[in-house]
């Protein structure tokens, strides 16, 4: 057995334990956060030593390929950024640092397992590790009722959808007699299943399995109609965790979703792509409309996240025909813009202890660089050049037009227009309104770093995309 394949995961486990030790030994809270960051970066660096030829273990259920390395890098990056922007926040909100960072690492570990899995069971295990850690993370603001409520809602709905997902998995297993994605694909194409002899008689149960599995993943990516928890949870959770969920959790879920549907069930693409297209349409529309009337910026970002998930789902729906490259590109860009946004939100939250849209008033006077970066992130979210968001949307758009989902491309275009007002509302507050108070902002240097880095990345993705494109194309090729 090749243990080397697990290097990042093992590093993460050790990090987790060390954080707990540091919690008791260190006098300074900052040390705990720093341990987490160092551990995560070590894990990230160890990725460089993983190569494609490491292959698979556990009977082809755990794999290291470019695709998983791409997502692991992305997820570890997200975790590092989330840890960094949490330094001050954790202190301000009196969150217990040891638990916070160790759970963050644990959740990331679950994600890593998810994106490397070639088997429904190990995907589920990763998913649960990710979710269960997330349930606690969301409820970390013990004094805040909204946080507790958010955690409870996420937990209950999460448990429910876990059951749905498992039911779907059991159906797939029942029909095909295996949980391994490659073997499932073989069974589906040959029709030689455990249960039945012909492909035709297999279809109904497979379809039911598809629907239930899709419901399970739909919950994780907060796609309408499985999104109901998202606004409450994203609003109530600690702000950095909201960012973590929107970027990390969603990216990991998309990674697993793509793997399951494109490797295991690609034969059935005609059916599930229709379902995903419907989810995409609903998510985009409802998310954007819901965001319009929000006054709390976290809640607004929650609805925005639902809409963005809708865009990604468009890419997923047409992935079998046009490739998964657009999805990966968009997820990468989306991670940067969301993290950037939340870094700014955390800045305000640290200073004003609230997350209302009004807090943005006059930000251009108090922190001009942050206001400019926020504007850039919003431009990227709406999809205006020369940002990474524009290119991401453009690739997905192109893929949709290239397939037979023209109507979906149309809906996407219309939705981009709908989304403009609420993003603009924030920008207007920052530049055209006068500040509500004269409080001076204290700006921690790590936030400056994160916001700056995100802004550069967004611009880089938009202006010099070739480098990224090649890299991502490499990852994308590995799914098939």
């Amino acid at each position, binding site marked *: 057995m090749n243990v080397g394949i697990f290097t990042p995961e093992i590093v993460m486990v050790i990090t987790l334990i060390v954080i707990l030790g540091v919690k008791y030994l260190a006098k300074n809270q900052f040390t705990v956060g720093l341990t987490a960051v160092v551990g995560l970066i070590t894990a990230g660096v160890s990725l460089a030593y993983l190569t494609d030829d490491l292959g698979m273990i556990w009977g082809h259920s755990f794999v290291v390929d470019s695709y998983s390395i791409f997502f692991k890098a992305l997820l570890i990056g997200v975790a590092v950024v989330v840890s960094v922007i949490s330094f001050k926040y954790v202190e301000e909100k009196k969150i*217990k640092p040891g638990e916070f960072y160790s759970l963050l690492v644990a959740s990331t570990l679950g994600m890593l397992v998810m994106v490397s899995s070639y088997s429904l069971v190990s995907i589920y295990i990763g998913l649960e590790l990710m979710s269960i850690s997330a349930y606690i993370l969301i*409820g970390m603001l*013990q*004094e805040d*009722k909204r946080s*507790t*409520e958010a*955690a*409870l*809602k996420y937990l*209950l*709905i999460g448990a*429910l*959808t876990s059951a*749905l997902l498992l039911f779907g998995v059991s159906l797939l297993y029942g029909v095909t007699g295996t949980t391994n994605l490659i073997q499932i694909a073989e069974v589906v194409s040959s029709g030689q299943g455990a249960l039945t002899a012909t492909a035709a008689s297999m*279809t109904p149960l497979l*379809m*039911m399995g*598809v*629907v*239930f599995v*899709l*419901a399970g993943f739909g*919950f994780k990516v907060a796609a309408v*109609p*499985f999104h*109901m*928890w998202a606004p409450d949870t994203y609003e109530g959770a600690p702000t950095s965790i909201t960012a973590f969920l929107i970027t990390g959790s969603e990216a990991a879920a998309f990674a697993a979703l793509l793997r399951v549907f494109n490797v295991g069930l690609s034969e059935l693409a005609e*059916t599930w792509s*229709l*379902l995903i297209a*419907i989810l995409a349409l609903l998510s985009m529309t409802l998310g954007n409309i819901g965001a319009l009337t929000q006054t709390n910026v976290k809640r607004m970002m929650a609805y925005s996240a639902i809409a963005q998930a809708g865009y990604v789902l468009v890419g997923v729906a047409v992935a079998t025909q046009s490739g998964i490259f657009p999805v990966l590109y968009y997820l990468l860009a989306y991670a940067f813009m969301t993290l950037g946004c939340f870094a700014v939100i955390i800045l305000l939250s640290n200073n004003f202890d609230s997350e209302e849209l009004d807090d943005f008033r006059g930000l251009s006077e108090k922190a001009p660089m942050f206001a400019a970066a926020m504007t850039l992130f919003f431009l990227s979210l709406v999809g205006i050049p020369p940002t990474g968001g524009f290119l991401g949307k453009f690739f997905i758009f192109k893929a949709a037009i290239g397939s037979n989902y023209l109507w979906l491309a149309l809906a996407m275009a219309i939705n981009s227009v709908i989304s403009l007002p609420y993003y603009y509302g924030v920008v207007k507050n920052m530049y055209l309104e006068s500040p509500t108070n004269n409080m001076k902002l204290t700006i921690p240097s790590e936030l400056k770093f994160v916001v700056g880095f995100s802004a550069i990345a967004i611009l880089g993705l938009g202006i010099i995309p070739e480098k990224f494109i090649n890299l991502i194309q490499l990852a994308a090729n590995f799914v098939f």
Partner: protein
Amino acid sequence: MVEYAWLIPVLPLFSFLIIVLFGRYLKNDSDKIGIGSLFISFLLAIGVLLEVINGSTITKEFVWATHGDIEIAFGYSVDALTAMMFVVVTFVSLMVHVYSKGYMEGDSRYKRFYACLSLFTASMLGLVIANNLLLLFICWELVGLCSYLLIGHWFEDIENVLAANKAFLTTRVGDIGMLIGVIMIFAMGKTFNFAELTHLVEHGEIAGVGLTVATIFLFVGAIGKSAQFPLHVWLPDAMAGPTPVSALIHAATMVVAGVYLVARMFLIFAAAKTTLTVVAFIGGFTAIFAASIALVEEDIKGVLAYSTISQLGYMVLALGVGAYTAGVFHLMTHAFFKALLFLASGSVIHAVHTQNMHKMGGLLKKMKVTGWTWIIGSAALAGVPPFSGFWSKDEILLGAYHSDYKILFWIGVIAAFFTAFYITRATIMTFFGEPRDDHAYEHAHESPSVMTIPLILLAILAFGSGFVNSPLTDMAFGKFIALEHGHHASPSSFVQMTAVGATLSGIILGWLIYGLRIISRKSIIKFLYPVWRLLKGKYFIDEIYNVVAIRGSLALSKLIGAFDKYVVDGIVNLTGRLGVFIGDLIGDFDNKVVDGAVNGVRNTFYVGSRLIRNAHTGYLQSYALTLFFSVLIGLIIIVIGG
């Protein structure tokens, strides 16, 4: 007609279902359904009996489950015993149904009462028609359930609930024994069918200790249901139910189930001599034991209750000494006269609103029909020739006289003396002499005809039903009911004289004490005070059970508590100390961290629970609902689109 025999239990069952399901549309017409269906059943039963007398029988079976080479079949069969039981049960039950129309009028749970009565009758009839132990056991349990429902009919009063519980639980004790017996018999014979079992026993394939133990266990079931010593305690308490229910339970349904079981499996029991001896002695002891308690009862229904136990003892005694015909014959006559006595007592209670005989007296003047029918019933119970009880009791004593144990005969005779005495006492205290409670007397009136007509009909049978097995009819009943191996003991004038002598002396003694008051009741009590106290306390059986069962379990729980306190706590404390010790070793224990953590978690849950309490739960449920509907819609899309 005999091929429609299955309808007899099914009709009351239907009536039960109709009343239960559509009771609210029927309102008080439920009684008509119950009475009507039972009336048809009764007519059918008569028809079946006539055909069975002419020699036709029927057996039907269908396989219910197959397991390996074992087939479990359900079926029914109609033979002489079944046909006779059909008539007795349907007739008595019909009388009770009609009578209840008057007695239960205006009851708040009138429909429920009739529903239960119907189910009760149906399950008893099912028990009688069953040709296998399994179906019999199911019906047996149903009978127990119905008795629970009916005894606790007026459940507003906690006493009634306790009585119902007691009846149910006590008979359950017997039922467990019976279940063991059923399983043992099945294990040995691989069948539940009576005919096949009998066949196996006769060919010696089931024999020896196994058979003895199994039959004794089966008999334990009969002890419970037929209220034999020592499981008789539920029956007197079961008086708490409405009087028609008492009549049904004590005359025709529940209690005779045990006797019926022994009669039905008589040839199997007969093969186990030890069991038969046990049966005979338990029966004999119960007969005299219960009769002695009835001597001092003040409650009119109490007298009848102990009388029932005693008479059941007679039946069991008869079966135990091998006098099969006598036992079954007494079952029949007893059903009629005991039902009559109960219904008559109900009529009295209905009139004077008390059950205490010391507050009655002289009621014959006010209640002619009730009074005279009661007297006929008492005469039958006491065994006055030529009333029905005389013939059947005589037959039992004859059987006991010819058995291996002469003592059983003398026990029977003394019990007969007691019987005559206590029923004379009850009759005189109730219907003769001066009214002791003027208010009650003033208030008394004859019951409506819906109650008195059943009394008259029952009285006719209580008087006449004995003749079917008398020399006048050439022992027709005996010939009809007898098993092939049944033997009829030759009549003995000695037995007859002794029996009549015991009866008459009992009546005369009762008349002297209570009627003419020549012998002072007080002086007798004074003279025999310890005995009187013992009888008054019903041999303190209930108290003994209380001590054994309740105190026993309390003591046990205390013992366990002590174990918990000293041993378990000790271990826990030790572990705790060890834990603290190790904790100290590892490092300084930060109390603040500990406090903080626990308080934090506590607060979290506090807030969480408050949140759930507030409006948010509704949302969550609708979230989940949306989720499921979404999945459903997804499936529909796939089905339509795919």
